[in-house]
């Protein structure tokens, strides 16, 4: 998405004082809730909530917070419909649409509500407030210290601040609890209070501007009391759950050069923190707000950065279409591909003169949630050691701890799926199998048993088919041992494991072993549903063709160990049954995905020189977010494949570095170049044709004979459009014409690495066109769907041409054209860049959405 900073004045944008966007009633809502949360209201607005057509509650927006305000309502029942609107002195919004239908929480959470999460850690003695998240809106939350209730909110928001009386004492064991409809969740993790730091950190006040009436103050200890002064005069003291606090209702509004101070305190008698200070900036310095992804078809704009308490405005093609408090501002009109959207922010006494102009692209996926955040159950841990089979098991439990009982409510619903994890070759003196506990815990929290297998007996031995087979034998041995535990009345896993839903994850040599296991496993009753090969080796131990299960591979682009990114071979050869997924992750290495592997192998000779890699937590987020999306889809039946296909971005992941390839079984393959019928015919056995000087051909995309050049490392047959002028065109005929309504055209593409083209050159691209049976054409540029990435820069001798999947939404082709989407008889490629670079293309498909 291209953005341009502009002057609001020069853009001559009209104001509509009567415009106010409907707020957002936060979903889901469940029966028995006695509160709803509404987001998007502007400062000072009154929010009205209607249930089944009758107004039942209202509230005034004080601090404008991303998660909205909580409004009490009469107890909701499943099937109720809820909507909201906001009102200011000058405007009233429409009602939010569509209404939210209240659900039965036992349908979504049959094993009970999610367990609450206390945040703002650590907890300190004398804390007067704490935060609790992972709640169902409108339920009841309370906090205990040494088993005594010290705070409660009935009809909670999410997250929810809970005031504490008495305040926390020293070394108290604190838990949060939650219930809805009398249905009690598991308690939170138990936290022990500690003495506060001395001195307390100095609060940090975010820049604020003249005309503002709210402040953001961060660096606050959990439970601290924050005092704010203006010009030396105390404005008040607020309890804070830690992290940051937003103070509202400053009156009169802030003035330029005014000095604001803040400090924090915890225990009486202890010294307060140092004082944080800012000088209020002039209104003219109020920056433009920041916005998240925006694409054709969106009905709201998501703001990512804005001043505390700002009112956010949106214009579509020069017309005001949205005004709200953020982070989501709903629009009165749907945006389309090619539209011009402008956004700006205002404070109570300050009109922001800086704006951002966006030309709406065809595809720019929104940020969804974090697929790994599903936190339902406490986590139990148990070890096993029987002959060569050694490992550690994480499982959903009654409470956190070692060998605690399996979660009874989950067990009552049936057996639970299993994921088995295998590490790779590394120093055998290191407990390599304990390097994925963060991932195992995430899986157990959502109701999956996760076993990590100790394969150290094979470590330090080199590489061979024998070693990979022995690793596979250990993995199968671990599954067999879990079968024993499942049959053992004395085991915490007795009767708990569903062996018809098994997933595998392997790293490095373990990644090759988990591709082998489904080929050779003979254990009765075991069905492998999914395999994640993380930076796998490929040395001939397998058929190299993952088949019969969902397959994912993660390829670290700065891998200095498995530097050929061999997992690309498995992806290229895998059958999408029901799907296959590849993540080529820039700026990640081989080792940082295992917490016990400390070296940065991007500094090794086969990778270096390359850009500094991401932090270890960023590596881990890639693994757990996308890995949980894989296992939730394949083992739990959750709708998480949009994260793998690129329709949604997982929150918290450095997705700008993730290049996705994805295929699913439900698709029309126009040309995958694997048919042996030459470049002149496609996979539909229909003709292709070239013009404008194009001399495209089919080549092996792999190392060795038949490759276009030595930069291809997968194993596919694909098409190369070599350089040769900017009028080159390739046409794929579709016999009879097809209805492409509600479809996407997918194609894998990469710029072919050529040493002569420097790494600092801008990206190249192409256009994809559709032609209908009447001859009407419409084209969309690759830059409008995310673009063609540059080859990842690393040691030039190991740089790669790595294809990614681009998705063109068919609806984009109808904007401003006469194209009849119901009868498309050709898909066309136009290589029109003046930079004249060669492109690699593969897997042209039409996919239903």
């Amino acid at each position, binding site marked *: 998405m291209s953005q341009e900073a502009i002057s609001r004045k020069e853009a001559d944008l009209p104001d509509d004082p009567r415009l106010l966007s409907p707020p957002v009633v936060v979903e889901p809502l469940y029966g028995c809730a006695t509160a709803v949360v509404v987001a998007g209201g502007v400062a000072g607005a009154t929010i009205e909530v209607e249930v089944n057509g009758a107004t039942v509650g209202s509230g005034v927006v004080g601090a404008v917070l991303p998660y909205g305000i909580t409004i009490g309502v009469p107890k909701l029942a499943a099937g109720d419909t809820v909507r909201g609107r906001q009102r200011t002195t000058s405007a009233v919004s429409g009602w939010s649409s569509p209404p939210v239908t209240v659900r039965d929480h036992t349908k979504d959470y049959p094993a009970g509500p999610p367990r609450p999460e206390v945040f703002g850690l650590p907890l300190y003695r004398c804390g007067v407030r704490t935060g609790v998240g992972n709640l169902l809106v409108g339920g009841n939350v309370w906090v205990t210290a040494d088993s005594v209730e010290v705070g409660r909110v009935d009809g909670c928001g999410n997250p929810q601040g809970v005031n504490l009386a008495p305040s926390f004492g020293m070394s108290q064991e604190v838990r949060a609890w939650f219930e809805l409809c009398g249905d009690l969740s598991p308690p939170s993790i138990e936290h022990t209070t*500690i*003495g*506060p*730091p*001395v001195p307390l950190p100095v609060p940090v006040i975010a820049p604020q501007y003249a005309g503002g009436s709210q402040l953001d103050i961060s660096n606050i200890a959990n439970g601290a009391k924050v005092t704010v002064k203006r010009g030396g005069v105390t404005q008040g003291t607020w309890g804070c759950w830690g992290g940051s606090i937003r103070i509202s209702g400053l009156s009169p509004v802030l003035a330029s050069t005014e000095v604001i101070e803040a400090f924090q305190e915890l225990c009486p008698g202890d010294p307060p923190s140092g004082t944080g200070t800012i000088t209020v900036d002039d209104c003219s310095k109020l920056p433009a707000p920041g916005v998240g992804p925006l694409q054709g078809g969106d009905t709201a704009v998501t703001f990512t950065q804005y001043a505390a308490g700002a009112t956010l405005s949106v214009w579509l093609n020069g017309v005001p279409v949205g005004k709200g408090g953020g982070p989501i501002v709903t629009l009165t009109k749907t945006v389309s591909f090619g539209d011009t959207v402008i956004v700006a922010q205002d404070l109570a006494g300050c009109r922001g003169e800086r704006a951002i102009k966006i030309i709406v692209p065809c595809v720019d996926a929104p940020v969804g949630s974090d697929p790994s955040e599903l936190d339902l159950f406490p986590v139990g841990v148990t070890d096993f050691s029987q002959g*060569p089979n050694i490992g550690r098991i994480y499982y959903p439990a009654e409470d956190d701890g070692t060998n605690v009982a399996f979660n009874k409510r989950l067990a009552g619903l049936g057996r639970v799926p299993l994921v088995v994890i295998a590490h*790779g*070759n*590394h*120093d*055998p003196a290191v407990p390599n199998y304990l390097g994925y506990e963060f991932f195992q815990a995430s899986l157990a929290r959502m109701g999956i048993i996760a076993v990590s297998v100790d394969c150290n007996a094979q*470590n*330090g*031995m*080199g*590489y*061979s*088919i*024998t*070693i990979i*087979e*022995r690793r*596979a*034998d250990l993995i*199968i*041995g671990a599954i*067999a041992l879990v079968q024993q535990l499942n049959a053992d009345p004395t085991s915490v896993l007795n009767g708990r494991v569903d062996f018809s839903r098994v997933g595998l994850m392997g790293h*490095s*040599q373990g990644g090759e072993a988990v591709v082998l296991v489904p080929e*050779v*496993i*003979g*254990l009765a009753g075991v069905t492998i549903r999914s395999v994640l090969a993380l*930076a796998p*080796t490929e*040395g001939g*131990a397998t058929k190299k063709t993952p088949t019969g299960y969902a397959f994912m591979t993660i390829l670290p682009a700065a891998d*200095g*160990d*498995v*530097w*050929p990114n061999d997992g690309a071979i498995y992806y290229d050869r895998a059958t999408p049954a029901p799907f296959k997924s590849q993540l080529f992750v820039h700026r990640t290495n*081989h080792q940082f995905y295992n917490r016990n592997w*400390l*070296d*940065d*192998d991007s*500094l*090794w*000779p*086969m990778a270096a020189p390359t850009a500094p890699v991401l932090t270890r937590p960023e590596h881990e987020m890639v693994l757990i977010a996308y890995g949980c999306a894989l296992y939730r889809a394949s083992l739990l039946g959750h709708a998480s494949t949009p994260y793998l296909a690129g329709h949604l971005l997982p929150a918290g992941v450095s997705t700008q570095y993730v290049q996705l390839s994805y295929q699913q079984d439900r698709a029309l393959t126009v040309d995958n170049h694997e048919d042996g019928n030459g470049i002149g015919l496609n996979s539909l056995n229909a003709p292709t044709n070239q013009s404008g000087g194009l001399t495209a051909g089919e080549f092996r995309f792999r190392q060795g004979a038949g490759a276009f050049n030595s930069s291809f490392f997968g194993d596919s047959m694909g098409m190369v459009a070599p350089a040769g002028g900017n009028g080159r065109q390739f046409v794929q005929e579709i016999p009879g014409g097809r209805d492409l309504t509600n479809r996407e055209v997918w194609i894998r593409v990469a710029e072919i690495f050529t040493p002569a083209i420097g790494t600092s050159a801008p990206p190249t691209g192409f256009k994809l066109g559709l032609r209908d049976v009447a001859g009407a054409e419409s084209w969309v540029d690759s830059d409008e769907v995310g673009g063609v990435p540059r080859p990842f820069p690393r040691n030039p*001798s*190991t740089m790669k041409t790595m294809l990614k999947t681009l998705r063109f939404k068919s609806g984009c082709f109808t904007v401003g054209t006469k194209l009849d989407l119901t009868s498309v008889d050709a898909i066309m490629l136009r290589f029109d860049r003046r930079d004249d670079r060669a492109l690699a293309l593969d897997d042209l498909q039409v996919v239903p959405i």
Partner: protein
Amino acid sequence: MSTDAGSPITPGPPRSPDLPRLRGLHIRRIRVEAPELEHFRSSLADRHEAVEFVVETEAPVPVRAYGPALFVGDVEVDQSERLGDTTWRLVALDTDVLRPHALIRWGWMKDPEEVRQNTQFRYEPENGE
């Protein structure tokens, strides 16, 4: 009680995956010994004959995902097994592709040609060093 600010663990300097040089090489034909596995039959069970290269290195070989390999002419011999600190066995399962008198080079499995180390050895079946 003061708060522990933590003690960050600093990784050591990057472990170089540089291979030590070859000090000795012994070649012989062997019968393939398929691994005895508990849960499935090895794919090597149907193999009969192989060529074994036992190499001595000047220092221990670092541990990484891929093992060391010999390159007999253009043929990569990459089935490796550590026998001792500086003793490794490499096995060529496809014996027919090994050309007598071919120059032997030394490197990591999958190393591109330009980074392989030259050695003084040639492939002389059954003749040892």
